[in-house]
């Protein structure tokens, strides 16, 4: 049994198109996931989270923003509606494209935070 060469070319072209479509779908899927603020790499996310938690523990708001590799961690403390001595500490992890990748909020005691 033999096939014509043109038939093979058609098959190859159609499969290449199919492959291209699958690749595009995968890329769109990944980019949508990224735009939702999720990291591709779980390890990177965990290490950033640890860093963020570490910076929260210190409560040192002298240096509000600092860089971590290509990311910037921005911190701020605002009064809460609960009591005057409770603050809302918020910090964001911003990527080089200025997109917020992570946003944390937690409550701290005013006495525990250090203000210059």
């Amino acid at each position, binding site marked *: *049994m*033999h*096939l*014509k*060469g043109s*038939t*093979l070319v058609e*098959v*190859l072209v159609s*499969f290449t198109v*199919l*492959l291209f479509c*699958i*690749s595009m*779908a*995968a890329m769109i*899927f*990944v980019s949508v*996931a990224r735009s939702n603020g*999720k*990291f*591709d790499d*779980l390890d990177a*996310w*965990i290490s950033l*989270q640890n860093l963020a938690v570490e910076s929260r523990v210190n409560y040192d708001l002298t240096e509000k923003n600092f860089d971590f590799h290509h990311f910037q961690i921005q911190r701020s403390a605002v009064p809460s509606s*609960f*009591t*005057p*001595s*409770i603050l*809302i500490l918020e910090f964001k992890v911003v990527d080089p494209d200025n997109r917020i990748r992570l946003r*944390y*909020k*937690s*409550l*701290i*005691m005013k*006495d525990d935070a250090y203000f210059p």
Partner: protein
Amino acid sequence: MKRRKPERKKNTALPGYSLLYVLFFLTILALIISGLITYRFFCRRQSLEWMGRANIERNVQSAITLMRDQVYTLPEGQPVVLSLFNDVNDSVTLCRARWGFFSLLKASARFNKYEYSLMALCGDYHHGEKEAALLLGNTFKPLCICGNTLLKGIFKVPKAGIKAGSVAGNYYRRSLLVEGEVIAKDSSIPIVNACYLHLQPQHLLNDYAPSSRVVRLRTCTFNDTLSNSFEEPLVILYAKDIIILDRCVLRGNVMVISDSTIRVESKAQIADAILCAKNIFIEPRFKGTGQFIATDTLRCGHSCTFPVPSILAVINQAVNPVPFIYFEEHCHIEGAMLAWTANPLKQYSAIGVISEHSRIVGSLYTNGEISLLGEVHGNVISKGFILRKSGAIYQNYLMDAMIDYSRQPKFYTGISYQPTIDHLNIIKWLQ
């Protein structure tokens, strides 16, 4: 003329099985790509799960921080669901309750099937540089110190002040009367927090019994194991007569109440429990944490150890009998000791004895006069001191005693004897 041979047409057809190879190869490629997409999908799911978990753990921590602020009012012992930041998935359940002298903070949250909760035992007193080492009631007599007595810190004493004296030829031997500051001020000692006076056997039973499991002991000796988490309902061991805790294990959310006497043997293992009775006798060399509350007599045998957080208290509201707390030699407590009586004692009678070589790391409060012969690494609030030596009674005397506030650990958290709105400090995380 030569006749050209017609060109033979080239055969470009491929064998049929080549297509099968191509199909097979492309199928493998498609499988790999779909596998990668599936992997990415599960990674993302896992990331969301991790982030959700981390989020609720942080929210539960925030809830504990919020409850530490006593200005934020919560119904006592009743769970409240609260949205912390008015965002999605930031609801937490808060509960603030009393556990004897301490406050118990509980917070929990849920994300999908993952539930996270924290519980903390808190006190409303914490070490501060400006706290007084001694607050002495006005007895119109100076505080006389003799022997090797050491006073270090801020001392708020009556205007009569502090002076060196001697008892049975034992003169004051140090160069300085006080290593620190003396503030002369005629004032009475602060009135104790009213909620502590409620810690009586019958009151505790009436308050807690409706929401707890009450076990009425039929035999006087209890030598079983009872470990109850603070997430579970309270278990009360109750008897009208004597309870002997011998070779038993009592841990966690457990209360032992007797209308008569509780005797704690040295082999008993007690952690975080509350013991409340008319009389409590603790055998020598016992070691354990808890709150030991007597209404009449509390006696600790020699060489007992009470690690942090522990409370030894005598709270007497009746005219008779006369309350007494006896802390024998080589005993050691990290926590608070309290001796309170509603009715004033007879003149020259002490409400308790802190024996030689015994040590309190924390605080001591009494509204009577106490015989202090040991060491207090912390602060003392007392109406006065009584010293019995060589058949004589000396009022407002200290001999070979120590009150040193600088030795109280900087991270120490205990109980405030007065109502306060200071924020609560965590003494211990509970399981």
